[in-house]
């Protein structure tokens, strides 16, 4: 999975630590074993593996095993990273950008990139050094950043902003604004009810793609029936 990329990223470190080509190749072969984690949190493992390689090569700790630290860290960091980045922070950045789009802001994609990458790149760079400094001490990482709490906050903010988006439906940009004879607050309430109804269908097992197709069929039916 990510083993090749991991080895590729370690080449400069291995080149510096092991001038002998054969030894370097042997070390690289160790890093080709199965490795898969959240890609941003892989930076922490990378720093930790570099530290272990250094400890071993310099004789500081001849028994240091970089493969062990990789095996130990990949699953917990994968779970942590998936729940924070994919499950909480990315949706928050996305929903902020979409609300800006719906308000007619053409610069919403730039806002998204700045918002997301300020955290992503900052954390990615920090994690390499944290992994190196602690030698892969995940407990120290958790003590420094409470990712579980941050994820919970991000999810709550995302939900509140989605609610705000539904409540401000009458002020959406023309490209998105629904038409209809309903006054503003009723239109907002109808939008909220529609979203809640679709949430129930999604929970019942319908996929977004199937619901999209169903929605298209419904619209076509309404149009052919002369209702719209």
């Amino acid at each position: 999975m990510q083993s090749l990329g991991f080895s590729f990223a370690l080449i400069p470190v291995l080149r510096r630590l092991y001038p002998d080509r054969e030894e370097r190749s042997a070390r690289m072969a160790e890093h080709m074993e199965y490795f898969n984690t959240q890609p941003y949190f892989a930076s922490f493992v990378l720093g930790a593996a570099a530290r272990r390689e250094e400890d071993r090569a310099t004789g500081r700790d001849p028994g240091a095993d970089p493969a062990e630290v990789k095996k130990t860290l990949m699953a917990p960091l994968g779970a942590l990273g998936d729940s924070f980045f994919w499950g909480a922070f990315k949706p928050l950045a996305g929903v902020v950008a979409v609300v800006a789009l719906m308000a007619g802001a053409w610069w919403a994609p730039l806002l998204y990139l700045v918002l997301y990458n300020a955290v992503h790149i900052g954390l990615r760079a920090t994690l390499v050094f944290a992994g190196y400094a602690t030698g892969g001490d995940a407990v120290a990482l958790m003590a420094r950043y409470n990712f579980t709490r941050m994820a919970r906050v991000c999810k709550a903010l995302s939900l509140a902003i989605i609610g705000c988006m539904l409540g401000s439906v009458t002020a959406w940009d023309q490209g998105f604004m629904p038409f209809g004879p309903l006054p503003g607050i009723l239109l907002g309430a109808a939008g909220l009810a529609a979203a809640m109804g679709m949430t129930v269908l999604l929970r019942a097992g319908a996929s977004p793609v199937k619901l999209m197709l169903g929605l298209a069929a419904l619209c076509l039916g309404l149009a052919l029936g002369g209702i719209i």
Partner: protein
Amino acid sequence: MPTFDLHTVQQVLAAACIGGLIGLDRTALGQFMISQPVVAGPLTGWLLGDLEAGLIIGGILELLWVMDLPIGTFVPADSTVTTVAATAIASIGGGGHAELAVVGLSLLMTVLMVPVTMFADHLMRQRNRQIPELALGKTGRPTERSVTVWHLAGLIAFFLKSFLLCLGIVPAGLVVLSWFPQAPESFHHAMILFVMLLPFLGAAAMVRRLSVSNRDRMLLIGFLIGVVCVQLLRLPVLAAVPFAAAGGWLGVRSRGA
């Protein structure tokens, strides 16, 4: 059948290149989220001359697929190829000023292709599993060169996957779109309503994944703040967002998180 003149062919090739390059950001290179629909749509639209279509398509697909997570062995829908292809079809087929009905049809056609993009992703991942063995070679000892070459070969494969998918989907979409003007008026109305309802489906898709409740308290707090700020106080939508975020924050604190 539409006339695929030189200009159209150039635009289709440009769209495929855009898809290939942006697709690299999805998993293979960087993951700076340029591949997310909210960025990929407007970027494609701007490059192909219809920013408005890109903004609408990107916004809708972002809501729909932002919570489709690549966790474990699950392969989510390829939102990047779908976004780039839908935007390209709308931009090229709409002559740079795609109507909302054209945007709707473009979205519908590309969403129908989602299983194909998922299958391509699945094949790519299977092939990727073999790459480390290739880098190890017959000796079982990788060299700096073999690791670098196979690592970069992975990038080329990812580029080609998105490039070829766009190269197949966009012309097919343009063929269907060329028949759209002859479609009954009711079909146009249906596509406009379809686009207008999609943000609500997107909101539902997010709520489903972010909360275990259909009537989440944070969602309702945000809704009330939106109604009060925008519909009663006549504030701009963007001015209401910080209030909604503050409401969400206070809600978390009151829960003792």
